[in-house]
């Protein structure tokens, strides 16, 4: 008798299956690909500290590409770049902070932990729908013959386009407004070339988040280092991308051609091109996280934190999955799904989303996306341009000029400053 069906062996699903199986429940973990992670386009920085409690010393075995010891935020305009760069040797040793990884490796590893705990992994099987009795979900339909599987609890971890959450009317059929599109190129370079270009050694890696590289389409760019490749890409609003009639790969080409990025990617061979939808609606647009008989986790629940300097998804997926798995037995016994939401409210998963609920509105606003990069670049260029024999201009004068030049009124700056301060306080 199956107790829990987990749909999707990504980070959320495997984390849920891991704790539910450890709790002695009979768990079936369904995966549509031939192995966990095989269909995944994402590859990025994974912050694994969420695993401390359930997989001690996870860092000794996680399939890491590089440990991120250098974190940069870059503002680009045409021909100009301002970078705030931070590095810490603390992030290069246990318990580490974040690592770059390929999700095909990471997901397989985490699903392996769930299997070790007793979960039964069934691959190459698509959950095509729900089995519902009355108002209660009692199982899933799959694309295999005789493919209905019943259980008192279904955990939907089937990703951003969750068919199950849509069928349960937890997610709208289309939700482009709250989705971004991430496109990424993996570019092959020798390891020593990456070390030299990015100023790192050994397992050290770099994560660069970029603003102002998307032709004014709300979003941003990224560059991060893998062992012998680098990933370059952009994440942009689906709605605005469609309205701008721009192809996402052209934005990546722009980014690669920028003078600040071109030297990093010079001579690299394209190894992989992928695209992936990301739920970035934030706390105010989270769907209901459960329905009788079913919990929704990870991207399916829109639990991806996109708050400017923080772009995190996998840790929130794992966090929500762990809470689903942890409370599975209680939910089965009481037929009450409320403890799941309550548990999420008590953890970073919903606390961070709630605290930063205004962040998407600030970060993706027109001024931040289209005007402030130019303003910042003008201001910094003015500060560092030596205009002798003319005396140096004052900062306020430069700021006024930069604001005027970019169509920003000073009251806008103050308003946005206050708004940003309120969001990120």
């Amino acid at each position: 008798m199956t107790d829990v069906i987990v749909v999707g062996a990504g980070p959320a699903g495997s984390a849920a299956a891991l704790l539910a199986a450890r709790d002695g429940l009979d768990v079936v973990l369904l995966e549509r690909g031939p192995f966990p992670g095989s269909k995944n386009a994402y590859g990025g920085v994974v912050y694994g500290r969420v695993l401390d409690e359930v997989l001690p010393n996870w860092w000794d075995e996680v399939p890491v590409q590089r440990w991120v010891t250098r974190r940069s935020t870059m503002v680009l305009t045409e021909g100009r770049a301002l970078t705030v760069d931070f590095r810490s040797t603390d992030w290069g040793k246990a318990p580490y902070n974040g690592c770059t990884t390929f999700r095909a490796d990471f997901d397989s590893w985490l699903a392996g932990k769930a299997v070790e705990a007793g979960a039964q992994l069934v691959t190459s099987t698509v959950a095509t729908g729900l089995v519902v009795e009355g108002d209660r979900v009692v199982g899933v339909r799959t694309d295999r013959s005789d493919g209905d599987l019943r259980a008192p609890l279904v955990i939907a971890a089937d990703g951003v386009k969750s068919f199950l959450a849509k069928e349960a009317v937890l997610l709208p059929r289309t939700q482009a407004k709250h989705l971004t599109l991430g496109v990424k190129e993996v570019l092959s370079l020798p390891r020593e070339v990456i070390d030299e270009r990015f100023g790192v050694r050994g397992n050290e890696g770099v994560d660069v988040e970029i603003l102002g590289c998307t032709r004014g389409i709300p979003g941003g760019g990224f560059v991060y280092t893998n062992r012998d490749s680098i990933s370059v890409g952009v994440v942009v609003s689906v709605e605005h991308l469609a309205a701008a009639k721009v192809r996402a790969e052209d934005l990546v080409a722009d980014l690669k051609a920028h003078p600040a990025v071109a030297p990093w990617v010079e001579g690299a061979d394209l190894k992989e091109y992928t695209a992936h939808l990301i739920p970035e609606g934030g706390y105010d647009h989270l769907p209901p996280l459960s329905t009788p008989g079913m919990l929704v986790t990870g991207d399916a629940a829109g639990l991806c934190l996109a708050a400017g300097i923080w772009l995190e998804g996998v840790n929130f997926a794992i966090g929500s999955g762990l809470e689903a798995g942890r409370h599975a037995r209680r939910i089965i016994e009481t037929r009450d799904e409320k403890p799941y939401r309550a548990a999420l409210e008590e953890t970073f998963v919903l606390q961070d989303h709630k605290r930063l609920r205004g962040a998407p509105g600030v970060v993706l606003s027109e001024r931040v996306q289209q005007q402030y990069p130019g303003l910042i670049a003008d201001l910094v260029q003015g500060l560092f341009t030596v205009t002798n024999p003319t005396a140096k201009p004052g900062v306020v004068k430069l700021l006024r000029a930069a604001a005027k030049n970019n169509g920003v009124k000073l009251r806008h700056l103050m308003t946005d400053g206050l708004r940003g301060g309120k969001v990120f306080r």
Partner: protein
Amino acid sequence: MAEPRLVAVLARCSDLRVEVDALTGAVSRDARTVAFSSSDAAAIEHGLQLASAWGARTLVLTAGGPECDGPLRDVAALGAEVRRVATHGSYVEELAADERALARAMVSAMGERPDLVLCADRSADRGTGALPAFVAHELGVVQAPGLVSLERDGNELIAERRLDFGRRERMRVPLPAVCSVEAAGTRLRRASLPASLAAARFEVPVAEVAVPGPAVRVLGSRAARPRPRHLPAPTGSSRERLLALTGALLSHEPPTVIGPVDASGAADALLEFLARNGYLSEARTGYAAS
């Protein structure tokens, strides 16, 4: 002949997405992408169909390590018996393995004499296509290679083989036989969900048959790089070498200056030059080399 009782399928399980480093020649294999090739899968599907029609058992054998257990479990979920012949060599050693010895080991692992043996026409990674012939030799039965379709005709088979120019050859194959098949549009069926769940924890039987090591031993493998040629270091200064290359200051025949002359004078001068350098005979031109 009595009704067939056992259809054996020898399926090769291999990594279908092997990556080879272009610089170092290093081969990286991934156990997660180990699977049956489309031809192997077609052989299994033919085996299941024929065994079902005859009321016979299907036994699927593969030689390899534990990474083959996953695909074998999937086949077990389809109702076939499965068995793995354990091999302990490295990938490179496997590539150089003696296929006759492997065929002998596989036949031995079958446990009983099969009525029909099915194989892929060639494996995805080796590609010699020699194994079916060795198996047929071991069993002392007929062999039909390169088949695109197999139909039951009583206790015999009607097989079709691809020929040049789009033609097909239709054959009657008596049993017992070894048949190797192309994928040719035949796809392996998917197991039902209950069967997949039941097979997920199935322990794949392992036959510890002694597979002799390769007759040809691999001493090492690396990317092909031609040895550098040893050239003597150049002698003399760079100026001297430059002069030697260009012949700038060496004595040479000075250029012939003709003219200004009229057309007949120019023709005479040309003929004289050719005769002087041996391109024209004196008799033919009337000009003697000066």
